[in-house]
C-alpha cells in the first residue's frame, strides 16, 4: 500500500475512479441528478479517448477521424431503434460489426500512407461518414435522429441516465484494465515499438502493418461502444457526432491526459470536459480561452497530466528510474530521418 501511495500517477486516477463510482449515489441523495448525465458524458468521452489511445498513444497512428466510429456507434442504436429494434445485443452487434468492418477497410487504405497523408485520409473518411449521415434524409439528415428505444440488455435498460452511467462506468473500468494489460502484452510491445521505429520492428521479422491495422480496428470498435453509450445517454444520434471537431477534441483529450498512458484518457476527459463546463460558467465565449490553452499544451510538450503526476512519484528502486520518455521522440525522429534518407 505504501508503494501505491508513493505513486500519485496511480493513486490519483484510482481515486478519481472511486469518486466517479460514488457519483450516482451522491447525486440521487442530494437530488442533483444533472450531474449524473454530466459525469456520464465524461466517462463516455474517456472510453472514446481510451480507444483513440490504442491507435494514437500506443501505435503512434495520428487518426484525425475517430469521430467516425463514435458516430457509427451512435447510429447503430439510432437506426435499429428507428426500425423498432430495441435489443441491446443487436445494437452492440451492429455497432461492433459496422465499426470493425469500416475500420478494417479504411485502416487498410490509410495505412498505405503515413505522416501527414495518414492524418488527412483518416479525416477524409470521417468527413465521408459525416456527409453520408447528413444526406440520409429518411433518418433525419441534418437534424439527427431521436431514439425512442434505448438499448435493452435483458433486464438492463439503458434508457435512464443512471443506467447509462453504470454501464459506461463498467465499460470504462474494463477498458482501463484492458489498456493496462495491452500496454505490456507482446501485441502492445510490437505497436509501441513500431511507433518508435517501424523499420527496426519490421527488420525483426514482424509484419508491422498487420499489427497496426489490428490496433486500428480494435480502437475503432471500442470507440463505437462509446458512441453506443453516448446515443443512449442523449436518446439522440446526430451527424454532429461525426464532425471533424469531435475527432480533434478526442486527440486533445488523449494528449492532455498523457499520450500512451493507461490513465491518461480518463484524466484528460475529466479535465477537458470539466474545464469546458467551468469556462462556460464564466462566459459564453469560453473557446476564446480554451483555444489558446490547447495551443499552450501543444507548445509545452506532451507528457500530459499523467506525466505531471509521475514527477511526484517516489523512485525507490533503481530500475524504476527509467529515463523520462523524452528521448523516444528523439528515437522516432532518428527513425524518420533514417527512413527519409533511404527514400
Amino acid at each position, binding site marked *: 500500500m505504501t508503494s501505491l501511495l508513493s505513486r500519485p500517477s496511480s493513486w490519483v486516477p484510482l481515486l478519481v475512479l472511486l469518486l466517479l463510482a460514488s457519483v450516482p449515489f451522491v447525486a440521487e441523495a442530494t437530488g442533483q441528478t444533472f450531474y449524473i448525465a454530466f459525469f456520464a458524458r465524461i466517462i463516455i468521452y474517456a472510453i472514446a479517448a481510451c480507444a483513440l489511445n490504442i491507435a494514437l498513444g500506443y501505435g503512434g497512428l495520428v487518426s484525425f477521424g475517430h469521430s467516425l466510429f463514435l458516430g457509427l456507434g451512435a447510429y447503430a442504436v439510432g437506426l435499429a431503434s428507428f426500425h423498432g429494434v430495441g435489443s441491446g445485443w443487436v445494437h452492440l452487434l451492429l455497432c461492433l460489426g459496422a465499426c470493425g468492418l469500416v475500420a478494417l477497410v479504411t485502416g487498410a487504405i490509410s495505412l498505405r500512407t503515413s505522416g*501527414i497523408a495518414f492524418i488527412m485520409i483518416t479525416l477524409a473518411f470521417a468527413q*465521408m461518414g459525416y456527409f453520408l449521415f447528413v444526406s*440520409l434524409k429518411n433518418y433525419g439528415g441534418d437534424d439527427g435522429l431521436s431514439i425512442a428505444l434505448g438499448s435493452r440488455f435483458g433486464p438492463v435498460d439503458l434508457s435512464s441516465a443512471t443506467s447509462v452511467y453504470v454501464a459506461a462506468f463498467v465499460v470504462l473500468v474494463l477498458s482501463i484494465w484492458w489498456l493496462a494489460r495491452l500496454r505490456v502484452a507482446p501485441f502492445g510491445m510490437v505497436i509501441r515499438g513500431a511507433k518508435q521505429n517501424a523499420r527496426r520492428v519490421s527488420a525483426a521479422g514482424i509484419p508491422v502493418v498487420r499489427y497496426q491495422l489490428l490496433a486500428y480496428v480494435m480502437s475503432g470498435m471500442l470507440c463505437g461502444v462509446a458512441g453506443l453509450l453516448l446515443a443512449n445517454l442523449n436518446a439522440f444520434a446526430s451527424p454532429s457526432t461525426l464532425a471533424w471537431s469531435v475527432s480533434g477534441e478526442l486527440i*486533445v483529450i488523449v494528449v492532455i491526459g498523457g499520450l500512451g498512458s493507461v490513465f491518461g484518457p480518463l484524466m484528460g476527459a475529466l479535465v477537458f470536459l470539466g474545464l469546458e463546463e467551468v469556462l462556460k460558467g464564466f462566459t459564453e465565449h469560453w*473557446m476564446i480561452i480554451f*483555444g489558446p490553452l490547447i495551443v499552450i499544451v501543444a507548445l509545452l510538450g*506532451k507528457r500530459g497530466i499523467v506525466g505531471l503526476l509521475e514527477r511526484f512519484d517516489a523512485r525507490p528502486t533503481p530500475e524504476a528510474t527509467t529515463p523520462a520518455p523524452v528521448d523516444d521522440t528523439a528515437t522516432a525522429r532518428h527513425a524518420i530521418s533514417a527512413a527519409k534518407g533511404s527514400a
Partner: protein
Amino acid sequence: MSSTVVLAQLLNGLQYGVLLFLLAAGLTLVFGIMSFVNLAHGSLYMMGAYFAATAFQYTGSFGWAVAAAMGGSLLLGLALEFVAVSRLYRRDHLDHVLATFGLVLFFNELVRIIWGSQPVFLQVPEFLSGAIDIGGFSYPSYRIAIIVVGLAVAVGSWLLINKTKVGMLIRAGAVNPAMVAALGVNIRLLNAMLFAVGAMLAGLAGAMAGPILSVQSGMGESVLITTLVVIVIGGIGSVTGAFYAALIVGIVDTMGRVFLPFMLRQVTERSFADAAGPALASMLVYLLMAVVLAWRPQGLFPANR
C-alpha cells in the same frame, strides 16, 4: 440536359477550383518544406473575408476590401508564424494538429465576439455585378473575375517558383530541406515568408469568396478540409500538383452535385436515386482522395524527389 448547363457548371467548377488553389498553394509549400500541418489555414481565409467585409463597409470600395484582406492576413500570418508556428516545426505532426486545432477554435470564437454570430454581407462590386455573354448564355462577370484572378495567381506563382532564385530555393526546400539548410540558406526565414504569402493568398481567397458565400464563423473549416484533400491528391509540396488537383476537385465536386442525382435516376429507382444521389455527391471528393491514395500514396503530381 443542354450543353449550356454543362458549360455553366464547368465554369462554376473552375471557379471553385481556382479558389481552392489560392488556399492550397501556400499550404502545400509549408507542408512540403517544414512538413507542418496547418489546420488554421482555413481561419486565415475566414479572417480575410471578415477583413474585406469590414473594409468594404468603411470605404465602399472593393479594391480596398481586397487590399485589406490581403494585407491583414499577411500580417496575421507573420504574427502566427512568429508566436506559435515557428516553435512547432521541430515537433511531430500530432503537436501541429493540436496547436492549430486550438487556433481554429480561438479564431472562430474571436470573429463571433467581434462581428457577431450572424453572417456578414460583402457585396459584389458594382463594375462586376453584371453578366458576360459567352456563346449564347450569360455568366456572372464576378465569377469570371474570380477565375481570372485565380489563373493569374497560378501563372504568377509558376513564374516565381520556376523562373526565380527564390523559387529555386523553394523547390529545393520541398525536395530536401535539410540539404538546403546545410548549404547555408536560411530555410526558416524562407518558410516564414512562404507561410505569410500563403496566408495572404488565403486572405485573398476569403475576400473573393465573400460575395458568393456567406461570411460567418466556421466558414473556413469545410473549405480547409477540401483544400487538404486537394493537397493530398496533388502530392504534398507540389504547387503544380495543387493546381491540377484543385481544378479536378473543384470540377468533380460541382459536376457531381449537379449531375450525379440525374445519372443515378437513369439507372436505379427514383426513390433510391433521390436518397443516394446527394449523399454520394458530397462524398465524391473524399472517395476520389481515397482512391488516389490507395493507388498512388504519394499523390498524382508529387514534387520531384
